[in-house]
């Protein structure tokens, strides 16, 4: 083999602590190396041309580039050698930047280490073989998990482009958290007025299949060809027959059911449509609240239903959908303020959370949009908002900023003044974080035009005095402890990852951070991709986000899917496992360790049983290779031979 070695200076990134000239010079002593040089920026256009020129002039059959991490530029150089006529796998990269120049100051030692890494790369390259990708067809259907505003946006964008969309929503209706909001910052436009039409669009698009009150059970397959099992939970109402007339809700005798949509502030019936704009607008029986399920008697809804839609014997049902890409838009949950015993949420009815106040403000809420306090229905004269409840607080394991609370408090204070012009609002805050477009102006408006009193300090405790609540806090700007008597206290509870987020991540084989938020592929440059090909992220499942950012990500994820689906086939990675049948003893250990189910049995003509790799399913992890007792199964491009040759080079 004729090998060329190119040592990159990376400006001064490598050259300042590695003698790149000496590394190139030394490389000429290694077997099969016929050409070696160093260059200022090998990844640049002229740098790549330099490689291509050398391939032609010196009839090179393989190339080693000693530069940065292969994560950075392996793809770049593979394309470059391919253009010059080599197979893209006849290329190796030695990482002498992240692994050498950036981490050590001793130039002599660094140079020696760089030489050894180049030598390892050369020895591996000598054993490389050309590999060829195969093409598999892409199933141009997309699954969107989560029907909040991010998922709705992604689904509509994909549907507008003509794709078949499957939308799975865990709750009875799509709409997510946004459907519970009264108005939105910083424009004070009505939440259901702007979200409602989008929800209706989802219902009306013929190419969107909506599975509401359903959950993803299992995901298998790979980019372009996923198989998804979806569990449609029993609603005890035949949704094909139900017209959403609401007669059953009127007649249901179990009227004391806690209203979850209204954040437990009111009651509803055991058979329910969560809110008037629900999509799909279909009824569901909440089993634990239903009189028939508890006593075996009642059946009022069944008798009254004009379309005979009620079926008490309904069971969960499983459907299977085949898709080529998945957009995860599972949103967030709100922090439960119970750990803050000193704030008394749950103990005092007039200490509520931000989302509860949102329902109080809403015209479709428990009080019909009249601002009243839950304990006695009186109109509050003083309202205190407490920021950062479950945000920026290590002691409750929520050290991050939730990003939306500063803005929703300002909005709620403004709306409270709009509803009750006489009300005085106070906000206890640590910092005001309002970096969006027109956001800070909005907060200033709350302070300047609406007279909201902003107090810079945290709240120590909240306790009752007469029929009011005393909020004891600090004003750190005054350097004083302050006390505010309030009729209603609103805790601005922060954002946390959605319930069940980790379990879903494991089904999708995507990673999540310590708080359960999904990991993007790159925090700046690949914000909606995951490290699992074909799975994309949108909205607050990736981290706290407001509506504009969630919508933007919904569209971004849709555009990624459209880019993927612009082709009819997808190239599979040839770096997969392969079985040498003459060596395979049919022990089956590879089958049991494969995390992807990519290995199956194959019976030869003589009746012997051998392992067989499904190349499109194999992810190239190498577990089988490490496990195989006779070393019959080898991961291509990372064979035992190649890795041992690298080690020999290092130890020689």
């Amino acid at each position: 083999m004729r090998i060329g070695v190119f040592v990159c200076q990376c400006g001064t990134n490598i050259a300042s602590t590695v003698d790149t000239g000496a590394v190139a010079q030394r490389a000429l002593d290694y077997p099969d190396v016929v050409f070696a040089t160093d260059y200022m920026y090998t990844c640049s256009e002229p740098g790549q041309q330099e490689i291509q020129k050398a391939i032609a002039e010196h009839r090179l059959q393989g190339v080693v580039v000693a530069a940065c991490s292969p994560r950075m530029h392996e793809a770049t150089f593979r394309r470059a050698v391919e253009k010059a006529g080599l197979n893209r796998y006849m290329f190796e990269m030695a990482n002498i930047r992240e692994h050498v120049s950036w981490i050590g100051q001793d130039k002599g030692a660094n140079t020696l280490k760089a030489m050894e890494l180049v030598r390892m790369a050369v020895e591996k390259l000598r054993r490389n073989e050309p590999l060829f990708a195969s093409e598999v067809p892409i199933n141009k259907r997309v699954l969107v998990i989560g029907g909040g505003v991010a998922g709705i946006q992604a689904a509509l964008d994909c549907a507008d482009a003509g794709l078949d969309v499957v939308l799975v929503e865990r709750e009875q209706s799509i709409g997510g958290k946004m459907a519970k909001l009264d108005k939105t910052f910083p424009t004070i436009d009505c939440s259901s007025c702007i979200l409602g039409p989008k929800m209706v669009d989802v219902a009306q698009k013929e190419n969107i299949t909506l599975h509401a009150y359903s959950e993803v059970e299992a995901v298998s397959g790979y980019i372009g060809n996923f198989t998804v099992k979806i569990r449609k939970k029993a609603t005890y109402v035949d949704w094909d027959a139900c017209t959403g007339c609401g007669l059953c809700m009127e007649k249901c005798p179990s009227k004391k059911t806690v209203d979850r949509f209204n954040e437990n502030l009111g009651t509803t019936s055991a058979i329910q449509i969560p809110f008037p704009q629900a999509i799909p607008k279909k009824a569901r029986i909440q089993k634990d609240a239903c009189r028939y399920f508890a006593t075996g008697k009642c059946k009022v809804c069944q008798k009254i239903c004009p379309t005979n839609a009620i079926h008490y014997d309904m069971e969960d049902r499983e459907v299977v959908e085949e898709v080529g890409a998945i957009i995860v838009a599972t949103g967030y949950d709100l922090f439960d303020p119970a750990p803050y015993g000193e704030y008394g949420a749950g103990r005092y009815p007039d200490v509520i959370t931000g989302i509860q106040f949102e329902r109080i403000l809403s015209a479709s809420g428990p009080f019909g949009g009249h601002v009243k306090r839950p304990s006695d229905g009186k109109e509050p004269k003083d309202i205190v908002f407490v920021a950062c409840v479950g945000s920026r607080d290590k002691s409750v394991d929520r050290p991050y900023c939730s990003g939306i609370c500063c803005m929703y408090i300002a909005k709620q204070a403004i709306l409270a003044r709009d509803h009750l012009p006489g009300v005085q609002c106070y906000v206890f805050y640590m910092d005001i974080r309002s970096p969006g477009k027109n956001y800070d102006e909005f907060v200033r408006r709350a302070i300047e035009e609406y007279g909201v009193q902003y107090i810079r300090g945290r709240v120590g405790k909240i306790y009752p005095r007469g029929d009011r609540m005393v909020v004891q806090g600090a004003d750190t700007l005054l350097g004083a402890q302050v006390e505010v008597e309030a009729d209603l206290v609103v805790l601005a509870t922060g954002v946390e990852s959605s319930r069940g987020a980790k379990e879903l991540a494991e089904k999708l084989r995507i990673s999540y951070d310590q708080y359960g938020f999904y990991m993007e592929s790159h925090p700046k440059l690949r914000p909606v991709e995951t490290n699992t090909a074909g799975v994309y992220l949108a909205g607050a499942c990736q981290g706290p986000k407001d509506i504009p950012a969630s919508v933007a990500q919904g569209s971004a994820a849709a555009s990624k899917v459209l880019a993927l689906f612009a082709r009819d086939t997808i190239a599979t990675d040839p770096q997969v496992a392969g079985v040498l049948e003459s060596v395979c003893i049919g022990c089956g250990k590879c089958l049991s360790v494969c995390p992807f189910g990519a290995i199956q049995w194959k019976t030869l003509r003589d009746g012997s049983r051998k392992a067989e790799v499904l190349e499109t399913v194999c992810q190239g992890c190498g577990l089988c290779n490490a496990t195989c007792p006779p070393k019959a199964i080898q991961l291509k491009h990372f064979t035992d031979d190649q890795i041992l040759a690298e080690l020999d080079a290092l130890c020689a």
Partner: protein
Amino acid sequence: MKNGQNLLRIQESRDAGFVERVERESGQRVSQCYQCGNCSASCAYTHVYDFPANQIMRLIQLGQRDMVLRCRSIWLCAQCQACTTRCPCNIDVARVMETLRVMAVEAGQVSEKDIRLFYDEFLKSVAAFGRVFETGLLAAYNLKTGKPLTDADLAPQVLRKGKLALMPQRIRGRKEVAAIVRRFVDAQPQR
């Protein structure tokens, strides 16, 4: 600022090693404080402090050693630990106050001499009797502060309720308690 210094030349008055020393001796990461103010919001004695607790934390961060060690707040702290309980950064603020008192004594910068005297007499009483002998402590404290009639008006009531013993209570393990105090005193550098 409350001591009338509205201009603080923070470089001139800065003790560069102060933060590190307070952190080492208290075992608390004072540098993590982001000034939410919850310590002051929860403090039971902030109305008599010259600097509220959050400002003490800030002064430590800025290395303003003399201002911290000479302040009254560190002596008026009642160690109720409300600040410690509610700090979102898990800083034991009361422990820091304790550390500052020890440092103030070492530096001879005690602002509240009487309170320091009370601490000393309390410990002496514990060393002598194994637990505190309140009547003796009160007498010694009142005499040494030169205000012998402090709280004397309460005496009839507490005596009637049997809250004050005329003789110290003998407890088991007095010698061991005394040894603990002695071991601590011997381990300290000369003050």
